[in-house]
């Protein structure tokens, strides 16, 4: 018995059809797909590209998303908006915390992918730890930023006048190219903390973590469509990210001044908000702040008529 196994795994069979094989198992490589509406489709275009790391090793075959994938993702994000923004803030916090838990559970995989993408082991571990902590940080803010940034305004008439932040809607994000996990988490977290939904274009050169992160999202109670992650080329998609009329804000994390100019111009079409995070160091304290949440919030002021009790001469 033992003999025959050894024979079949190492030698050529008598009729010559069976080739010599090694005892080593062939690894099953992961298919890196995009994340739209809680599903993992391949790109509609059928295209892919092969990012390589610094030593020239091919990382994977990754979807080269098209503008139609982006369009579909925006439809999903818009569909998910009312449900997500309508949730209790406390519940959003629970979901973000759950995301952190799931990320913690798959830490080893992220470290592995980051090291494939040229990071040292120590740096990769630090990046994953920070990403987890960042989710916890924003989980805490979910039901607190409203109090900090709301106001009761003094007015001269008999009105109760107050201002509160409300989520702006669908946010398109071109994520940082370099900090492919920490940067990604750091831009997504404040957006969804505030109740917005988003479509994210992951790092073009280092896309592995983004796809694995979408698997984390998918297993962490986050409703489908709240976060949609595409892989592909910013040079091809950035203009679509900013001129879609159903997108309310766009976040850009790179320094390319021609892209910034293009974004400023195109945003005029529906007066969407343009936010640049090109100078943020995501590894430091400045990489997390409730002000990031406020970047995709709108302030709504309400005039609520109240009875002028003293003026009417009445009372309780």
């Amino acid at each position, binding site marked *: 018995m033992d003999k025959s196994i050894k024979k079949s795994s190492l030698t050529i069979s008598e009729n010559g059809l069976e080739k010599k094989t090694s005892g080593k198992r062939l690894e099953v490589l992961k298919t890196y797909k995009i994340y739209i509406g809680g599903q993992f489709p391949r790109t509609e275009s059928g295209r892919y590209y092969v990012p390589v790391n610094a030593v020239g090793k091919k990382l994977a075959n990754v979807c080269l998303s098209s503008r139609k994938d982006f369009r579909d993702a925006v439809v999903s994000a*818009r569909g998910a908006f009312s449900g997500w923004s309508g949730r209790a803030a406390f519940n959003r916090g629970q979901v973000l915390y759950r995301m952190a838990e799931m990320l913690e559970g798959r830490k080893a995989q992220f470290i592995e992918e980051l090291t494939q993408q040229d990071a040292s082991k120590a740096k990769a571990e630090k990046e994953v730890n920070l990403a987890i902590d960042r989710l916890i940080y924003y989980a805490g803010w979910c039901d607190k930023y409203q109090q900090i940034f709301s106001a009761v305004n003094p007015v001269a008439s008999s009105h109760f006048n107050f201002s509160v932040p409300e989520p702006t809607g669908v946010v398109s994000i071109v994520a940082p190219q370099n900090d492919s996990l920490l940067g990604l988490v750091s831009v997504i977290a404040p957006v969804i903390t505030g109740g917005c939904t988003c479509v994210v274009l992951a790092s073009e050169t280092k896309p592995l973590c983004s796809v694995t992160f979408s698997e984390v999202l998918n297993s962490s109670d986050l409703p489908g469509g709240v976060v949609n992650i595409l892989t592909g080329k910013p040079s091809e998609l950035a203009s679509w990210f900013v001129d879609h*009329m*159903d997108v309310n804000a766009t976040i850009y994390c790179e320094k390319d001044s021609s892209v910034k100019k293009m974004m400023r111009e195109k945003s005029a079409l529906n007066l969407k908000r343009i936010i640049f995070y090109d100078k943020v160091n995501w590894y430091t304290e400045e990489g997390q702040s409730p002000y990031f949440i406020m970047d995709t919030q709108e302030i709504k002021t309400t005039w609520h008529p109240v009875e002028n009790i003293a003026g009417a001469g009445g009372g309780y």
Partner: protein
Amino acid sequence: MATGSPKIFSHLSNGQPGFSLSPRIDQVGVEERASRFTKRSIKKESKLNGLKLVLNMIDLTTLEGKDTDGKVKQLCYKAMHPHDALPDIPTVAAICVYPSMVKIARKALGDSGIKVASVATAFPSGQAPKDVKIRDTKYAVNEGADEVDMVISRGKFHSGEYNYVFDEIAAIKEACGDARLKVILETGELGTFDKVRRASDIAMHAGADFIKTSTGKIQPAATMPVTLVMLEAIRDFYYKTGKMIGMKPAGGISKSKLALHYLVMVKETLGEDWLNNEWFRFGASSLANDVLMQIVKEKTGVYQAANYFSVD
């Protein structure tokens, strides 16, 4: 007409075919064929023309218990001015309302050329005595309806009383006078393609000007396979009698892309003679806005958002 004992038409002296002998439908074949129509590539100029044609074929519909005069007037305005930012687009084909709203719609539409269609015959269930249905129809026509959308008696159909169904359609057709009659089969309640085919044959022989899939109140409503079965019934009827019958899928068609697939199906099943709103209609409400959004997208190159289009 006696309704107690079901008779087969071929036994009657009126020359009608035996509807219990309507062709059997190959379900697998129909579904396969219908899915082929979704594989055609329609781009740029032809897409834009297709979208305009779709818009021009829409019966803009409001059939709610909560409909008010104001809602109907608003919808009529929308029918005449689908999107004021685009001056060179067509209007919709018709407004589809309940009989009590016909007068308001007629007045609001004026001489715009847009038709008023009214549902009648105890829509959507059709569970009312025949004389009530006839009065319902006459009321709608007297109020000014150009078209009447009737429902067949599905209960009678299922109990095999095809004569009753036939006679009822014929009676309503008579009550319509000059108004065109659309016969709603409510395919979602018929169950099989065989029955859809049989109901189509009955309706066309009884005098329908249009056959229509659904009320929109029952799921499933219009699907491509069921519409294909009805289109093929229309084609066979045309070959046999030389008479053209219109088709109206209704309910569940809310995206432009799907509507274009339907146009492909009509073109490849019946030919170009049917590709106008005289012979083909979409019963829909939210489809209009999606078509407008796609037209604006084609013209500007920018994806559109629903909140820049009027609510209807």
